[in-house]
């Protein structure tokens, strides 16, 4: 199975995971500073900044794009409850 490396910068933890995993499934287990509200791409609570590997995440859906816009997301921000990991990434809470 293809693997990817996900680094949570705020706590200095790197996790090796199967490709296709969602960030939400990892960040809670390792106690990273990413936090969640609705868990379904609606509230914008879980916004993260992708420091490296921006192209190694699944494309944002139309709904995610809308929530990011409404929450005035900065550049390279994604919703951690939505984005699926396709390759190595480095993230931190936005």
């Amino acid at each position: 199975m293809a693997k990817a490396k996900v680094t949570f910068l705020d706590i200095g933890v790197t996790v090796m995971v199967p490709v296709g995993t969602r960030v939400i499934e990892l960040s809670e287990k390792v106690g990273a500073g990413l936090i969640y509200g609705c868990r379904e791409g609606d509230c914008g609570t879980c916004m993260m900044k992708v420091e490296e590997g921006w192209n190694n995440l699944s494309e944002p859906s139309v709904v995610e794009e809308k929530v990011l816009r409404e929450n005035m997301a900065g550049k390279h921000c994604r919703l951690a409850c939505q984005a699926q990991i396709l390759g190595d990434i480095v993230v931190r809470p936005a």
Partner: protein
Amino acid sequence: MHTVRESSLCHFRAVTVNDAALQPVTAPGLQDKAVALSDRVHWIGALDPTLRSFDIILKTANGTSYNAYVVRGSEGVAVIDTVKEGFSDVFFQRLESVTDYSEIKYIVLNHLEPDHSGALPELMRRAPQARLFISQRAQTMLKALLKHDAFEFTPVMTGDSISLGDRTLSFLHTPYLHWPDTQCTWLVEERVLFSGDVFGCHYCDARLFNDSVGDFRFSFEYYYAHIMRPFREFVVQALELIEPLDLHCIAPAHGPILRDRPKQYPAHYRRLSSPMLHSETGHEKTLLIFYISAYGSTARMAEAVYAAVSEVEGVRASMYDLEGGEVAPFVDLIEEADAILIGTPTINGDAVKPVWDLLSSLAVIPTRGKLAAVFGSYGWSGEAVRMVEERLRGLKMRVPVEGLRIKLIPTSEELAACDKFGHAIARELTGMQEDRIVEMA
């Protein structure tokens, strides 16, 4: 539509002669007319003197008011906020006393909660030409709240403004005070801030203005404590926008209109939102241990953890037995703390009530991102630690160090595990933990 008579119990309205218990009227009866703040600005809200609780979480001993306003410019009229639906009649009467529906050019909603948006659909029906302005964050809420697809609206941000000819409304983006959608509207030429729920309180008094109503200080602070306190960081952000304004008057959506020394209210919010302990702990991280113990085992664990975290430089730890304290001051402490540790035995398959009482009282403070961990002694099943961990995660705290459970009385090796547990938490707290690689593939 359910209609409520606002005059039914209001102490300051006309009283019958034989009703000796009520005070004489000290302000002119409001009638169903608008009340002037200036020749261009009128209050067209409603009083709700019989309400006794609001949003479930607040008591309202003398009711509340839903303040709405009309602003007149040389080129039309703007309506700022509406009222709870049941009070629509009096709202429209007051509105009609100062304007014709055809003159209404703009409607601004500072907050979509039903106590302010209740009369919006009817207002839009009566003034179909009016353009609706709401905040960016209000867009998806509007539809869910009003169950109406046909509303057109314009989302606005800080810096946006709209003109009524010789009067200008400009918008301040002040999210999470206390919903994601909240904003304030600034009437530039008159220096009036329509602040929505911010600087509001549930205090019903027909005299309307802060220089003539009764003593509403308690209501003001109580409202802050229950509605704004959970969003302290957002209060501070909003104050950055509000403090530079040369305020002539604050016109909130509930309670007295603050025209006498209006600047003292943002100043009071500044005090209420400032950390109390900061100066005393300096750069150290504060860590609080709360425990409770029937036979002393969880207490022994707490002491071992306390000793461990106290050894680490940069950590200021304190320990409290939940049996010996009240919830409210503990909540105040947690608000300022960087980390909290909970020690609880498992009793009948659960953590104990004083622990849940504390953890169910944290909704009034921001807990997001605080560090947390749980430990406890148990007899055979030990559910409490995991349950409390889940609750702490639910409160958006970080729980990076796995909870520590010890069966019955701790041995010396088990106390050493407490020591290790304490050090791991202190390292997380001070950022001294080493970078780690975790295999989950």
